[in-house]
């Protein structure tokens, strides 16, 4: 509790700058297609699919891999939680999600080897 209060206080030292308001001109770029749809995955698979503590990491996979996995899940006869989830999205939506996630590159702090290990341990866990 005290630590939290100290943190709030520390934050109050940060510089204050009043913002001026203006509605942006049309020069802004449109939000990437599929980003809002793909954000349905972030609760469990981390921001942009870059899971560290949750379920399987999605970034680093190709669009086709993600798309194929989603379609396979949707077809499973005894659906687990993610299989059931996959049934909520059309082919076109799955493609948009897969395309967006595939463009979110694995970050420098995670090597391809890390991604593989985390996937393996994920599979092991769900079997046990």
């Amino acid at each position: 509790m005290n630590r939290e209060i100290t943190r709030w206080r520390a934050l109050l030292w940060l510089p204050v700058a009043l913002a001026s308001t203006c509605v942006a001109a049309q020069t802004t770029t449109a939000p990437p297609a599929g980003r809002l749809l793909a954000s349905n995955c972030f609760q469990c698979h981390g921001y942009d699919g870059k899971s560290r503590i949750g379920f399987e990491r999605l970034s680093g996979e190709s669009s086709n891999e993600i798309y194929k996995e989603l379609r396979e899940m949707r077809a499973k006869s005894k659906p687990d939680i993610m299989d059931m989830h996959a049934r909520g999205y059309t082919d076109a939506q799955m493609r948009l999600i897969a395309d967006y996630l595939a463009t979110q590159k694995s970050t420098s702090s995670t090597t391809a080897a890390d991604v593989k290990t985390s996937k393996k341990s994920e599979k092991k866990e769900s079997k046990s």
Partner: protein
Amino acid sequence: MNRRDFFRLASMAGAGISAAGLSGLVRAATPAQLGTVPTNTGIKGRVVVIGGGMAGATVAKYLRLWGGAGVLVTLVERETSYASNILSNLVLNGQRTMTSLQFGYTNLATRYGVGLVKGDVAAIDPVGHSVTLADGRKLPYDRLVVAPGIDFDTIPGLETAAAQAKVPHAWKAGTQTTVLRNQLLAMKPGGVFAMTIPAKPYRCPPGPYERACVVADWLKKNRPGSKVIVLDANPGITAEPLAFADAFNVVHRGVIDYRPGISINSIDASTMTLNTSAGNLQASVINAIPAHRAGKVVIDNGLANVSGRWAGVDVLTYQSTAAPGIHVIGDASATTQPKAGHIANQEAKICADAIVRLLAGRSPDPSPITNSACYSPITSDTASWLTAVFAYDPVSGSMQAVPAASGEATARSQDNYKEMFKWFNALMEDSFA
């Protein structure tokens, strides 16, 4: 708080902590996997968020991630840290502590440059575009997001603070959760734990049944001969009917006594008696969950235009149907979606995306999707799950459940129980870290 701190806080009035002032810090401090705030979107605006719960924390974070450094976000929260309702039923059987369910706001400030103001919003001025805090401070906004969660009706007989402390709802995690845990510990073998469930809509549809299971499981092992009597104002189990019917009729048979269709007239805390539509009932512990309504700030500021309790919204933007420029997300809004933390998080992302588009002069995404996933403990080492996906239906203008994607686990399992913690950690990270 000493005098100097107070004045420092007071001098913040009207500004919050500038998001722009923090942008230098943002990139340095954010682990790459959690995302960085872009500096060059060209989008500008001031957004004030009321309430730093599942919905408010998420919208503040995503407004910065998707809007960029020009979208200045100020989060106003009355508490110093957030106490998670999710998993708080496990405080009752001693598997979690309330301390382990606290989430601070520092990450939102240091990683994403969200301005933090500790305070209680009292008034909203939709014409002048500002909010006023209980201590008089004023915050101007271009867009306002209201995410105060819920408040409770008062059950007749429980008007005083003393009566409420004796008959806790523990439906907002915190002190009352600990009170209820202590009451369980004080129960004698052969006692009666009575709980009441309000009519829909209430937050976390499976939550009360989950609680009945967790408590029954604990009583069986620790206070043998005790019973859990569940008085449900609804005509039947409102969520995960298979899992909970199995729990009530098989797993916890003889311990849980489930009685649907019973409403509460009043509760006498001194004699520990419930006066119900099916007669009087006495219990050693009473856990009464009152009917819900949107948080006070919604009701007091004319935003509760659905049965006087909930905020009507357009689910493409979560903009209030009562006042323009004001968005209401999470439990306080009236939608076809369940009042749940997972859904609140996704509503927040749709709202953040819509605000960013609106600030840039664009229209909102015309076909949003939300999802809910939830694990419910049935015993101390097994859990069930439910899932739902909602898609926007342009004909009714509402979010409609996709039937094929909405359902529950065929059986409880230990794997589900383990996955529950993974899900919780990931969801809380997406919302607060």
